[in-house]
Each structure stands twice: as structure tokens, then as C-alpha cells.
């Protein structure tokens, strides 16, 4: 599918134009493509938006709308943004189903999407507007469409259509009329835009400018009369009647309605009968043979429209053109019934597609119990729980697949299949019934079963709607046999409350939910599949994975071939974290770091752990492929969320027996991301990404399709485990505050600045003594802190901000994750300049952030705190020095210390007391530390040396001023391994 260029949007962003609370009212204009939407704020009648300057290419207008008053309603002027149909389609067609916008906006978004759907089905006709302009209308609509229009109209709140109506005072547009007008606008606009983009030049009906075409009114009226007929033609086919016993005769005759039954011979002449019938468009259950029209009651007859006879003739002509065999019908003055020989029936059946294209339906009567031929795939594989752990069978092995044909739910045997294959006619008598043998049947009978792997079979057994046996056709039913079926059952019935006790060597006691996690991971690993562990940050995904590694090493401890080494792939900033936790929880474990210029995999033992980064995988995936990995773990798997990126592609090339993805973001909110992760764990389970988007992602994200949501859930649920901090079994388990160090790398720019500052200072210090020395050291420290915060802070620049600081990158990631999880965050920095930069950076990225600083009055501070507590802010940036007492910030789930003072323990206590962190909900505190810098060293010192920490606690930073040159150099010189890959 070639991707279009998105239609141009006004320069204001999506979030600006569709703030929560803004209402959208449709204003119909002639011709339809000039209609527009008024976007206005019901709480601010007459005023402009509070915080944004109107962008230059968005028009603001004053429009009269009918608004409620204390008694009744009245027409008032409202200042609104004018959204043309073009911009409305661009914005609203892609509105996610869960967007926080007013109901009127959501409802119109659905209307627009429905309009596009109908245009895609070519339900458009040229039309002439009442004033004589060329335009298009959305027609014809079938009964389902009309029901949808009614439902859409019923779901529109009054604000969506409150334009005063000329029909009378106190009246507004009729909602159904408004919906139809909007649909016409979508049709009119789409044709013009499509013509322009396709380079088609048709001045009348095909260009944006208005044209007067009153002389075409008779033609378009004719066109509408024919294409939107009140009733459509239906041809009902009756097979030849067998001579029945006398008792059955009357019931058979009643089937044929008014068809002339002169002689018994004529009835039983072995010919097929085609009866012409009419079906009402507005009520498809009303179907009447045309021969019976005169006998109908007037109210019934009227539901077939006011030109029934003409509709029959027009329909028949289309039918005859599609299928000449029907010509004799048009030779009857009052066409009603046609008799066909068997070969003529063949001709008729060969025209089925043409007839459908002409709008004529063909039916077999239900009274004769129409059989339907169905087929399904029967799938068998030896891959199952027993074979999974043996390395001979993998999930991409082919499996046995066969087609099975069913008539009325019972499988056809060999001789019956042979009868079908040999059939020369279009209909065959099988098991006492007539079965149609059309081109589909012949294709089916000849078709080879598709090639399916274990994973395809697994997906099918889990009810995947993505099965691709015939290209674009819906997936056939699949029946799974053998050990594979056993595996599916085991997957679907696994009890997630099962706990697996942690291996003896693990130096920790796992919490209940972590034991459950271990059991689940072990099950999927033993089944030879894969898993995605998506617990909230802070719940201990790392320890669960380490426990899994140890657990798997123990399983085969008495066999020569152990499970295999484990590869952990993570962002550079987390490598230290993994090493530290592995050292803490599995001290006997041999851990290798595959990173840096001298890396190699030579002495990796079968039960070892290897840690590497996404960057290294990108360059060295070939080397990594030489090891027979047991587990391959992708930490923060959203790093490979873009399936086209080289990171994702390289990651796929590293083979392992089981792949585990770890992520803290709610993947079910970002379906393309979910696809990427699942496709890495179990390649092929979700098919190709285009089809996934068409069949599942777009219906779920934009249309709110619950069936699709359910299908997706069924398919991925066995492989996804996500626990939240707020889950009932978990929250009490968690301590109120979890702290972690986030070690981040410096950017090349920062490294250069850092080194330069250190070099210069050390040079000067070699010559300086006394007070000057003390001062010089302190100013160096200040510079280093600023550099590690952000080069722009050090250099006194105001921007650009992105990608220049490791800390900023880490904060972006943490805050994005928090916002995704609907959590609030506090960010602490000592520097107001840094605070301002952070707030600006967040705001630009669409995150609601504010700065609480010393310059604010008490009231202003309280307002900010109130906003934060009311979840009107995602991030509150605080300057430590601005702290007062008694500010309640219990809504915070995340706290980030962007930079540190020198006595962290004291500062922590102060902040906790001041802001009551952790008293409302469990909080994760992240301390950003730049790797290899003075921050890192000090943090290490504080961790390991008690005496030093006491000194620091008591005297602030002055102790550093007293260090001699060597000690100082040791503290401030940048680590040499910081030149490694990102």
C-alpha cells in the first residue's frame, strides 16, 4: 500500500486545536465542500483562548449559536475557530478512540470516518445543490448505513448541531439532517482532493471552484432515482420440483406464489425457475415477488417506493446486461417468472459477479434448506510440550496442513469430493440436496493447503483473524490436532497464581507476585515459546529475569547440555544496573560485559550471563549469533519498537531458544509497538505489520472496535504479563518509597566540555594555594555540575535542548513512561535555569509541566500545588531552595532528582517531610548520575565509606575544597571507558 502524504494541517498542533472541553458544531454551507466546523469553548463565550496566540492561518470567526439560558435558549454570538472540511477531515479522521475531547468532537469524528468509509465503498453520486452549484452527495446508503446514520445522529449532543434553523425561532438543525449534510461535505471534498492528487482534470464535479450547473439538475435527479431506488431486485432460484405425493403438492405450490401453474406437467418439467422479487431498501426483510404486487396492502406497497414498476424494469435491464440469459424476462409485459434449462442455469451462475456488481441479488429459497459448502484447515504438529525442550524442533518448523470440506457441518468423504471435482454442471445433487459448484468451489478443490509453521498454527489456534491463506480473504477456520493442540490448551489454561519458589542460589526472597512471574516465565520458556514481562517500573522485573536464568540453569544441571547462556540487551544507561543486581542476587554467577573496544565472547560458559547494549547488537549481531543462547532478554524493549529500524532488525538476527522482552510501558496503548515486540518474541504470530494495522490496530485505536480488541487480547494475552503498582495483591507489598540510581552516559559534547574544564582547572590549581584554591575548586565543581546537567546551562544558551545531555534523555524517557501510565512526576533541580529549560522542553513535547520557584507568591505556589494534586499537571519542577513546609504533593508517583547537592540523605529527608512523598501512593525515586564523572564518584564514596559520608553530612561541600591535587584529580577526571558505544 503506498502511503499518501498527509493532508496539510494548520501550523497549530493537534493538541492545541482539540483541547479537552472544546465543542465542535457543524455549519452546513452550499456547496457541501464549503461547510465547516466551529470549534469553541463553552466556558469562555466571546473570549479568545487563554494561553495560545491564534496562529496566522487559522481563522477565528464569530458565529451565532443557539445556547441554553436559565429559561429556554437563545441565539448568541460565539467566537470560534473555523475548521474547514479539509482540516476537519485531516484532524478528526485519525482521532484515537480514547482521546480526551468533548463528545461532540468524538461524534463528528465518527461521522467523518463513516463518511470516508462510504466514499471508499463508492457510495457517492454527482448532484446539483439547490442554488445550482456542482456538488456530490453520499448515496446510496443501504439499510445498515441508514441505521448507522440514525445512531450517529442520536449520539450527537446538542452542542454539535446548535446552529439556529430558519425553520423557526428556538429551533436548531435537525441532527439527522446535519449528519447527512456533513457526509455530503465529506463526499464533495474527498472527490475534489482525490482528483487533484491523482492529476485528474474534470472541471465539472472534479475541481474545487464552484460551477453553476443548473442545467444538469434533470440528469442528477434521474441518476439518483435509479441509483437510490427504494427497492432493489432479487432473483430467487427454485430447483426443479420432483413429483411429490399428493399430500405434499399443496405446500410446494405455495412456495411459488403467484406463478402460473396451469398444468401439472409444467410444474414438474425438470426446469429451474427464476422468480423476480423486490426487496425494500429501508426494510430488507420486506421481499415480495413482483407477481404479487397488486395484492399487497397499500401501506406495505408504499414501503417499496413510489415507482415500483419502473424500478423493476430498470433493475431487470441491469440484470439482463449482466446476464443475457435473462432477456426473456424483459420480453414479458409484466415480467415475473422465467424457466431455465440446466445449461441456461450454468450461464446464469457464471454471471453471478456481474449481477452483484449490477446491484441484483440472487437467492436460493430458505425453505429448501440451502446447504453451504465450507472448508477448514486441519493442522497437525508434533511440536508440543514434550518436544519443546529438545533443540530439534523450533517454532518456525513447518507443520502438516490439510483442507477439509464440510457440507452442513459434516465432512465430505472421498467419493463425494470426487463427485464435486468431476461435476460439469454448476449445480450438483449431493446427499439429497443441490450444491452449487462455482469457480470458488473448483478453486477450493484444486487448492493446495498453505504452508504453515508452528507459529502460524499457534496463531490460528488462538483465533487469530490475521490468517492469510488466500491473500486478502478472511481467515478460514482452523482445527488443531496432536501435541500442538495440547500446547495451546496448556497456554490458555495456565493458572497465573501458580508460584515458583526462587532457586536456592538467589540471594533474596521473592515477593508473592514475583514468584508468580517466575512461574509464568518458566512455563513459557519450557514450552519453547517467548514472553513479554510488562510490570510497572519498580516491581522488580530484573530480579524475576535473573531468577529465571538461574532456574533454567538448574533444570538441565544433570545433563551435558545445559540450557545455554543468557544474553541481556539493554540501554547503555542500564548496564551498570544489571551488573550490580546480578552481583547482588547471584554472586556466583559469571557475568560478562560485551561492550567497549576490546569486547569478545571467547570464554562464555553455558550458564553465564552476558550483558550488552542495543548499539552493540546493531553492529555485532553476527558475532553474537555464533553463541547458542538459551535466553535472549531485551530490557526496555521499546528501544526496538520501530520495526524498520536497524536496531530492531539486528535484534531479530540473534537467535535464542527463548526470547523475553521487558518493558515498563503499557504496550497495549501503542499497537504498532506491541506488534514489534511480539514479532520479536514470536516471529510471525501477528503476521505482517500492514495487515495487522488494517485488521486490528486501526479498528481498535480509531474505531473503538470491541470485537477486534477481544481478538487481539485472545491472541497475545498468553504471552503478556503486566502487574501494576496499584494491583490489589501488590500495593501492600511495596514499600512506600523505592529508590534507584539511574546512571546515564554523557554526550560527546558534554565529554569535550567536561575534559576541557577539568584540564584547565587542574592546571591552574597546580599553581594556586590557599583561599584561591578553595574557591577555584568550588567553581570547577559548579561548572562540572552544569555541564553534566546540560551544555546549554553551562554555556548560557537557551537552546536547542534535545539530544545534548544524557540526563535530559533519561528524564524524557522516565516522564514519557509516567505520562503513559497516567502518573504524576516531580523533578528536583538546584538550578532555576535548568528548571525553566526542563519546563519548556516538556511543554514543547505536549506534556503539562510547570515550575515552582522562589519568585512565586504564596498564592501562586498554592495554585500550582493544587493543579498538581488535581492531575492538571503531569510534571512539577521544583527548585530545592524554594521548598516551604506543608506543601502537599502526595499525587506524585515518581520523583526525579536531576542533580544532587552534597548531602543527599539530608536533602531526601527534607523533601520527603516537606512534600509528604510516599504518603499517598508508592513512589519511585530516580537519582540521575552521569557515568564516570564526579557525581558518580561521590555517589560511590557515599555508598561505600561510612566515615566519609558522615564528614559530608556535617560540612557540606567544603571538604572537597580541602582535597589535595591527587585526590582531587581522582575525583574529577572522567572515566576512560566513557568513550564506548552509546
Amino acid at each position, binding site marked *: 500500500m503506498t502511503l499518501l502524504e498527509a493532508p496539510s494541517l494548520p501550523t497549530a498542533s493537534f493538541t492545541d486545536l482539540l483541547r479537552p472541553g472544546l465543542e465542535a458544531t457543524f455549519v452546513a454551507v452550499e456547496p457541501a465542500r464549503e461547510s465547516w466546523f466551529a470549534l469553541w469553548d463553552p466556558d469562555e463565550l466571546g473570549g479568545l483562548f487563554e494561553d495560545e496566540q491564534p496562529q496566522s492561518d487559522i481563522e477565528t470567526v464569530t458565529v451565532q449559536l443557539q445556547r*441554553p439560558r436559565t429559561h429556554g435558549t437563545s441565539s448568541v454570538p460565539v467566537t470560534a475557530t473555523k475548521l474547514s472540511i479539509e482540516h476537519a477531515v485531516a484532524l478528526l*479522521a*485519525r482521532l484515537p478512540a480514547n482521546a480526551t475531547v468533548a*463528545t461532540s468532537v468524538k*461524534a463528528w469524528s*465518527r461521522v467523518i*470516518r463513516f463518511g*470516508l*468509509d462510504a*466514499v*471508499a465503498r463508492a457510495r457517492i453520486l*454527482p448532484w446539483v445543490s439547490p442554488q445550482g452549484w456542482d456538488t456530490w*452527495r453520499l448515496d446510496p446508503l443501504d439499510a445498515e448505513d441508514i441505521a448507522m446514520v440514525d445512531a450517529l445522529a*442520536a449520539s450527537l449532543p*446538542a452542542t454539535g448541531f446548535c446552529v*439556529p*434553523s*430558519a*425553520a423557526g425561532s428556538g429551533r*436548531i438543525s435537525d441532527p439527522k439532517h*446535519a449528519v*447527512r*449534510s456533513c457526509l455530503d461535505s465529506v*463526499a464533495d471534498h*474527498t*472527490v475534489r482532493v482525490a482528483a487533484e*492528487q491523482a492529476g485528474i482534470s474534470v472541471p*465539472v*464535479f472534479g475541481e474545487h471552484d464552484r460551477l453553476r450547473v443548473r*442545467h*444538469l439538475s434533470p440528469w442528477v435527479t*434521474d*441518476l*439518483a*432515482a*435509479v441509483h*437510490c431506488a*427504494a427497492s432493489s431486485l432479487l432473483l430467487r432460484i427454485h430447483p426443479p420440483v420432483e413429483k411429490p405425493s399428493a399430500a405434499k403438492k399443496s405446500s410446494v405450490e405455495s412456495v411459488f406464489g403467484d406463478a402460473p401453474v396451469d398444468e401439472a406437467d409444467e410444474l414438474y418439467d425438470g426446469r429451474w425457475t427464476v422468480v423476480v422479487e423486490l426487496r425494500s431498501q429501508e426494510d430488507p426483510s420486506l421481499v415480495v415477488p413482483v407477481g404479487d*404486487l*397488486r395484492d399487497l396492502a397499500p401501506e406495505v406497497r408504499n*414501503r417499496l*417506493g*413510489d*415507482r*415500483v414498476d419502473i424500478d423493476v*424494469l*430498470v433493475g431487470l*435491464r441491469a440484470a*439482463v446486461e449482466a446476464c443475457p440469459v435473462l432477456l426473456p424476462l*424483459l420480453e414479458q*409485459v409484466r415480467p415475473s417468472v422465467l424457466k431455465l434449462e440446466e445449461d441456461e442455469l450454468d450461464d446464469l451462475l457464471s454471471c453471478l459477479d456481474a449481477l452483484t*456488481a*449490477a446491484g441484483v441479488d440472487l437467492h436460493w429459497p430458505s425453505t429448501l434448506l440451502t446447504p453451504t459448502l465450507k472448508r477448514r484447515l486441519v493442522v497437525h504438529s508434533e511440536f508440543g510440550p514434550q518436544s519443546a525442550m529438545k533443540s530439534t524442533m523450533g517454532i518456525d518448523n513447518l507443520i502438516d496442513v490439510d483442507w477439509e470440506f464440510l457440507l452442513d457441518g459434516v465432512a465430505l468423504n472421498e467419493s463425494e469430493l470426487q463427485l464435486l471435482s468431476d461435476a460439469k454442471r454448476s449445480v450438483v445433487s449431493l446427499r439429497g440436496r443441490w450444491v452449487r459448484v462455482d469457480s470458488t468451489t473448483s478453486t477450493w478443490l484444486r487448492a493446495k493447503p498453505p504452508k504453515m509453521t508452528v507459529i502460524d498454527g499457534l496463531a490460528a489456534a488462538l483465533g487469530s483473524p490475521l490468517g492469510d491463506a488466500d491473500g*486478502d480473504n478472511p481467515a478460514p477456520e482452523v482445527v488443531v490436532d496432536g501435541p500442538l493442540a495440547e500446547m495451546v490448551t496448556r497456554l490458555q489454561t495456565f493458572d497465573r497464581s501458580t508460584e515458583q519458589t526462587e532457586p536456592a542460589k538467589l540471594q533474596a526472597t521473592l515477593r508473592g507476585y514475583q514468584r508468580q512471574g517466575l512461574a509464568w516465565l518458566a512455563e513459557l520458556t519450557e514450552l519453547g515459546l517467548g514472553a513479554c514481562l510488562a510490570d510497572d517500573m519498580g516491581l522488580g522485573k530484573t530480579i524475576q529475569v535473573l531468577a529465571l536464568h538461574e532456574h533454567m540453569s538448574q533444570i538441565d544441571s544433570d545433563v551435558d547440555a545445559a540450557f545455554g547462556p543468557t544474553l541481556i540487551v539493554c540501554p547503555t544507561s542500564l548496564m551498570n544496573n544489571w551488573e550490580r543486581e546480578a552481583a547482588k542476587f547471584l554472586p556466583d554467577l559469571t557475568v560478562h560485559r560485551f561492550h567497549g573496544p576490546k569486547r569478545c565472547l571467547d570464554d562464555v560458559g553455558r550458564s553465564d550471563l552476558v550483558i550488552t547494549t542495543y548499539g552493540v547488537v546493531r553492529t555485532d549481531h553476527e558475532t553474537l549469533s555464533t553463541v547458542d543462547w538459551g535466553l535472549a532478554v531485551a530490557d526496555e524493549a521499546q528501544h526496538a519498537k520501530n520495526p524498520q529500524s536497524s536496531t530492531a532488525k539486528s535484534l531479530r538476527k540473534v537467535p535464542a531458544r527463548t526470547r523475553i522482552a521487558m518493558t515498563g510501558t503499557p504496550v497495549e496503548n501503542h499497537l504498532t509497538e506491541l506488534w514489534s515486540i511480539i514479532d520479536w518474541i514470536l516471529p510471525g504470530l501477528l503476521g505482517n505489520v500492514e495487515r495487522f494495522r*488494517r485488521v486490528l490496530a*486501526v479498528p481498535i485505536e*480509531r*474505531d*473503538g*472496535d470491541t470485537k477486534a480488541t477481544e481478538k487481539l487480547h485472545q491472541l497475545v494475552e498468553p504471552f503478556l504479563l503486566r502487574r501494576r503498582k496499584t494491583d490489589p495483591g501488590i500495593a501492600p507489598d511495596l514499600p512506600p518509597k523505592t529508590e534507584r540510581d539511574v546512571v546515564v552516559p554523557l554526550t560527546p559534547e558534554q565529554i569535550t566540555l567536561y575534559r576541557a574544564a577539568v584540564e584547565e582547572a587542574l592546571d591552574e590549581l597546580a599553581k594556586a594555594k590557599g583561599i584561591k584554591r578553595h574557591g577555584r575548586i568550588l567553581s570547577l565543581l559548579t561548572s562540572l555540575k552544569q555541564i553534566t546537567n546540560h551544555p546549554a546551562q553551562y554555556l548560557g544558551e537557551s537552546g536547542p535542548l534535545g539530544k545534548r545531555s544524557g540526563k535530559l534523555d533519561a528524564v524524557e524517557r522516565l516522564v514519557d513512561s509516567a505520562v503513559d501510565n497516567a502518573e504524576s512526576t516531580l523533578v528536583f533541580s538546584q538550578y532555576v535555569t535548568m528548571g525553566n529549560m526542563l519546563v519548556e522542553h516538556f511543554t514543547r513535547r505536549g506534556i503539562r509541566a510547570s515550575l515552582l520557584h522562589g519568585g512565586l507568591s504564596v498564592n501562586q505556589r498554592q495554585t500550582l500545588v493544587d493543579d498538581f494534586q488535581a492531575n492538571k499537571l503531569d510534571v512539577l519542577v521544583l527548585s530545592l531552595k524554594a521548598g516551604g513546609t506543608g506543601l502537599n504533593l502526595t499525587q506524585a508517583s515518581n520523583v526525579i532528582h536531576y542533580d544532587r547537592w552534597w548531602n543527599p540523605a539530608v536533602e531526601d529527608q527534607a523533601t520527603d517531610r516537606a512534600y509528604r512523598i510516599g504518603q499517598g501512593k508508592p513512589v519511585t525515586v530516580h537519582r540521575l548520575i552521569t557515568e564516570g564523572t564526579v557525581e558518580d564518584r561521590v555517589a560511590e564514596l557515599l555508598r561505600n565509606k561510612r566515615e566519609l559520608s558522615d564528614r559530608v553530612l556535617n560540612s557540606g561541600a567544603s571538604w572537597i575544597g580541602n582535597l589535595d591535587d591527587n585526590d582531587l584529580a581522582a575525583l574529577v577526571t572522567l572515566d576512560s571507558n566513557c568513550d564506548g558505544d552509546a
Partner: protein
Amino acid sequence: MGAANGVVWANEWIEAIEDSGSFGEDVLKAGARLARNQSFVDVEVAPGLLSGRITHRGSTYTAQLGVQVLADDQWSAFCEQLLEQPAKAVALILGELPDGCVDVPLVPSAGELYPDCNCGDWNGVCVHATALLYEAARLIESDPFVLTTLRGRGRYELKSAIESARTESDGQRAGGRVSGHPRGEDPGMPAAAAYRRQPEELPTARRLPLDIGEPVALSVPPPVDSGVSVDDVHALVVAASKHAKNLLYLES
């Protein structure tokens, strides 16, 4: 469709003129040549009369062709014939002039034609009037209802006659649902009631089938002078359909 059918009628018209012997061979040839080389302007088609202006050797002349209109009972007979053959009746409803209706000669004989011109040539029929005869053939070829108009009844008159005759004889009474989903005026709704009512839940979208297929072709072709053809409309519909489909599934 109209065009293919028009050729037949145009040829009959020309045959009637050329085989009649009422016009000299030379003047016919000259008229045909003139009609080929020059264009008529301000052509008017009315019941019983065709007129137009043409420039010849530097001067502009107005030629006229009087045509004998058919009597009312002849037209009734014509319609009755059509009504007895549904295939032809529906052809007319859809904008074709069905051929093969015997008994009622639509094409006038030479004696029913009264050519005239203001060029002052008194020697029988002048070259300008003859040219108009061929121009008539050309018009009939692109729209055969030019013929019926000249003979007294235009396309829509005939269409209504056929339609109402069929509907009446069908026993249809007034009051049936009007076909064509007419867009009436907005009936409006009381604002107070609108604000009081509780909106229903938003409906889930219906899913577009993956394979849509080609749109249905227009069954009623546009008039000849509309500036748009069946193929034009079809191309627009196909383009719009593809565009809408892509827009629905575009990445955000």
C-alpha cells in the same frame, strides 16, 4: 449508449434525405461539404423547427428547417408500442431512443421537411439549408432525442409519459416512499428539546471489507453538452474511493 444508438438514427435521417430524390445530388454534396468544413452557430432545436447560422464565402446566413410534427395520436401509439415491450420502455427511461418501433415513423420523409434560408437563393433548396440537413444528422447522432424534439416531443416529455403510464397501469397509488433520497429542507428541531435529551452511546464503526472491488458504472449517462462523460465520473469515483481508503488506514 446514446451515442451508439444515435448513429442508427442519424443514418436513417440521411437515407431519408438522400434516397428521396427531392433534393438534387449536387446541392446535397455541396451542403454536406459545407457542413463538414464550417460550423453552425446559435443552433436552436425546437418542436417543428431547427435553425442555425453559418458563414459562407464571407457572409453569414440564417438557415431554417421546418419539420412536420407528429400528431398526438401518433405519439400515443408510439408510447403504447414501447409500453408493450418493457425492454424498449426502460431503454427510453434510461436515456436511449429505442429503434425498431414500427407503425410510427420517427424519421420524417423528405416531404415533411421545409428547408429555408435568408440567403436569397431562389433556385430550390440552397446550399446553406442543405448543410443544415446534415447538421441535423450530426446532432441526432450525439443525441437522438433531437429527432423526437423536432417531431414534437422532447426526451423528458416522453420519459414522463412512459413512466406515469406504467405506474398508473400498475395500480400504484400515491404515497409510496419517494425514491432517490431527496434532500429536503432542514426541518429543524426545538433547541430546548435537543439540549434536554441525553445523547446515546457512540456507535462502533462498521468495518470496511478488505476487497471492495470496482464501483458500479453509472446507468444514466450525462447529457451530451454537460461537459462531463461517464468515464469522467467513473474516474472521479475510483480516485475518491482509493483516497478515502488510504486516509482511513494512514499512520498517524
